[in-house]
């Protein structure tokens, strides 16, 4: 260890202290304990509850990432992750099942983000219709087990197909195939118990992979931006198909969707859940839904774990390197003998398979599947996850999925609930918020200038070059602030519910990410280099001493 230079800022000193595994472990433990304490002390009857839960629950969700980024030894990391995800989250779930529901959604979207990350991040193929494969998985389970009157339940009579008086295909009857709602699934002449759900996850994987190959075949010759639009078209085609296959033969029940989809048996979890709830001092009025949620939670994180393993192995394999080669330079990859079509199809199929697996799970969890759940908005949501986290990285995809899902289902929803709660008590925004808003925005503008400034002499020039932007921001903030003060929440337009404005949030998110951090929050090393090549070189030449310090630090950390 070298001695700490006297010029080191307090922040850097703290960062250096955090490199010690024991201290880091202690900090993490304190963090998790504090988060749990806060979460378990929230009162649902409080007017400000939505705001508190909006702020507190993400602390728990981000804990695994803090563990992953900490300097703990691998075994300790694994143990803490297992404790967090395997014990802490289920306990929170028994305490309040909305949190468990959120965790299931985060897991499902993590699987989707990981799958899309294989296509977009590893192989560099922008797929805007990715949700279609998720839909394929969801529908394969739903059509067989829904209580809706699909042809699989009622049987179907095909009318003969005639052209110009000649019969091309004779008419024929199909006997009912599925007997839904009885705990048994009949496919053709085979009757399966409900545990066939697990078999259907594999069917979902297979079918989605086949769909991926079928969709991939005609479009893989296209360059990036064309591919994006064509996959978008494919996604819409699949949605329109599911929307319209309600007649003449009712396969998908059309726009009404398939309701009453069966769930795999989770009765064996009721007793343990009740037992744990008793120990915690919580009485569950309806333990059965909690038990089934618990089952789905563990299934979902199991699938996510498998996909992480798969993605890691693939990334470090010849296949992964071939994908990287295609992503970086297609022409060069062909020249080096990479079988382009096969590799692209493999990327499409692998990505699609991940979505197929969680699709089956999703259909069973929701017990309802309709074409509306598989719109372009959802595809873009998943893309936003991959981009926010960082294309090409596994941790990045997981972080992106957590952030975007939390924003989508937790923050925006609770924001809307908070507005409603305040509307009911006729809350008026106090004048203090004017000064708060102005102070915050000024601080933000100054911070941005400070970030991009190297010396105090630079600051004046920076300020001048950013003057227009700063002035516009401040004026807008001022105008906003004057509107906000003394605003009666009861006057909030009823159509302006934040949970219906995901496009607004994700649109801004995508643009800002592209402008300021295209490599994502947790970038993979290669992607960062690719997107910031010139800047890195520039900085390295410009400020040699800073660079020197960085290497010293790395040296001290034993890298």
């Amino acid at each position: 260890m070298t001695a700490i230079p006297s010029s080191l800022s307090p922040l850097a000193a703290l960062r250096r202290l955090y490199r010690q595994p024991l201290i880091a472990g202690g900090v993490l433990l304190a963090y998790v304990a504090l988060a749990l304490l806060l979460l378990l002390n929230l009162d649902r009857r409080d007017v400000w509850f939505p705001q508190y839960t909006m702020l507190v629950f993400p602390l728990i969700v981000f804990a695994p990432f803090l563990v992953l980024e900490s300097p703990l030894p691998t075994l300790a990391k694994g143990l803490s992750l297992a404790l967090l995800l395997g014990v802490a989250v289920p306990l929170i779930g028994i305490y309040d099942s909305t949190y468990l529901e959120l965790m299931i959604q985060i897991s499902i979207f993590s699987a989707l983000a990981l799958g899309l990350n294989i296509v977009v991040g590893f192989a560099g193929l922008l797929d805007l219709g990715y949700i279609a494969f998720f839909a394929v998985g969801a529908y394969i389970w739903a059509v067989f087990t829904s209580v809706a009157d699909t042809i699989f339940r009622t049987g179907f009579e095909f009318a003969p197909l005639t052209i110009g008086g000649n019969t091309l295909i004779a008419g024929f009857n199909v006997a009912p195939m599925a007997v839904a709602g009885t705990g048994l699934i009949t496919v053709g002449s085979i009757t399966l118990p409900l545990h066939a759900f697990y078999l259907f996850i594999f069917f979902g994987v297979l079918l989605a992979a086949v769909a991926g190959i079928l969709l991939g075949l005609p479009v893989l010759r296209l360059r990036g931006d064309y591919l994006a639009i064509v996959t978008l078209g494919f996604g819409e085609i699949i949605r329109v198909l599911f929307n319209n296959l309600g007649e003449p033969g009712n396969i998908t029940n059309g726009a009404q969707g398939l309701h009453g989809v069966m769930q795999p048996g989770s009765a064996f979890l009721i007793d343990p859940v009740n037992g744990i709830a008793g120990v915690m001092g919580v009485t569950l009025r309806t333990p059965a839904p909690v038990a089934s949620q618990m089952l789905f939670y563990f299934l979902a994180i199991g699938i996510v774990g498998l996909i992480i393993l798969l993605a890691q192995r693939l990334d470090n394999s010849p296949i992964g390197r071939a994908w990287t080669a295609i992503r970086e330079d297609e022409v060069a990859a062909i020249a080096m003998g990479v079988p382009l079509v096969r590799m692209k199809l493999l990327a499409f199929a692998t990505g699609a398979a991940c979505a197929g697996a969680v699709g089956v799970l999703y259909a069973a969890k929701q017990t309802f599947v309709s074409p509306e759940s598989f719109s372009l908005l959802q595809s873009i949501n998943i893309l936003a996850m991959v981009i926010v986290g960082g294309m090409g990285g596994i941790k990045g995809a997981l972080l992106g999925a957590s952030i975007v899902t939390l924003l989508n289902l937790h923050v925006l929803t609770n924001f809307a609930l908070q507005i409603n709660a305040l509307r009911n008590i006729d809350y008026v925004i106090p004048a203090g918020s004017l000064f708060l808003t102005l102070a915050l925005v000024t601080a933000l503008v100054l911070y941005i200038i400070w970030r991009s400034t190297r010396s105090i002499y630079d600051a004046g020039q920076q300020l001048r070059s950013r003057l227009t932007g700063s002035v516009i921001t401040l004026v807008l903030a001022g105008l906003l602030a004057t509107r906000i003060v003394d605003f009666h929440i009861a006057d909030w337009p009823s159509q302006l519910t934040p949970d219906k404005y995901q496009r607004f949030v994700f649109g801004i998110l995508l643009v800002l990410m592209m402008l300021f951090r295209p490599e994502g929050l947790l970038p993979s090393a290669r992607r960062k280099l690719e997107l910031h090549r010139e800047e890195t070189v520039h900085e390295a030449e410009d400020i040699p001493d800073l660079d020197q310090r960085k290497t010293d630090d790395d040296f001290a950390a034993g890298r």
Partner: protein
Amino acid sequence: MEARSPADWMYRFLLFPLGQMLAFIAGSAFILTLLAYGIALLFPEPRPNIVLADQIGRQLPGMVISGITTGFVYAMIALGYTMVYGVLKFINFAHSELFMVGSVVGFEVFLVFSAQAMLLTWHPVLLVAIAVLSAGLVSGLLAVTMERVAYRPLRGAPRLVPLISAIGVSFFMVDFVRALMAITRNDFNLTYPLNGVDWARAPIPLLIGTTTVNLRPTQIIIIVGAVLMLLFLNYFVNGTKLGRGIRAVSQDMTTAGLMGINVNRIIALTFFVGGAFGGAAGALFGMNVGTVTPFVGFFPGLKAFIAAVLGGIGSVTGALLGGLTLGMIESFLNGVLVYFPVFGQRYTDIFAFAVLILILIFRPSGILGEKVDEKV
């Protein structure tokens, strides 16, 4: 190559483009009519007591006119895609939102007309011109802002980066307009106050042979307006100095810059013109359909993109050809598929995508596009 004499000018900027449009319309209408009768030969009676050939004969003029109307709207939107692509090699995913904004602006303008009781007193041509021009102006300025804020900083980044930014802009725009509507009128369905206004809604009977076709006045407005604007665009791109700048930049940006062309200004201008055409198309479209929403841009935008690819992206004539052809294809499919029990109109959108995929497989450069090899 500048126009030398008035006669030459007339030919290059008036007769030739008009002839081109007529040829495109007649050609696609002829081929599609043949195809429709071919289908009628295969399936003479798709439903009991409905003879397909008779139905086609009765509906043919109507189908052609609605095909031209949709086709011109697609062509005007497709121009924005194709011009921006020509200059920056970048698909402006948010272009469909410029169309949407145009239709919303058109609605607001007509609302003012209606409130001031100008709808029935002022001359319709003046009203339509004001609405369309203001929609074009707002959308054009919006396009320039978009380029300045979300695309220019990303010039030179890997291809996917500006595309993702454009997707973000598109999503943001939809909800931004939706929020504005929620705040100002708490409703997203914007109905043009044209019901009961004779010059816009009273059907114009048109006798073709023995059958009467009822034309909507707004269809005529769309066709006339689009033809005028396309003539202007042709003059602007091929006959003015600024247009020459656009062509130069789209051929080779670096060299154009070295020749003293202000590349940034030309790119902004391209966005403005493309956006203005999209916005004007939006106002015309809104007048025709009557009700618009903040989501109205998605399908027309997507189909206009398909039209641009069909004609050959990067080529202005290609956008016109692609738009008219796709509009015709859709109108004929709508007219014929209605009589089939299994398919039906619900699948029209799918056919547009099928067209896209087929072109991309068999002729990725489009009908009029030139094959460009990727440079290594």
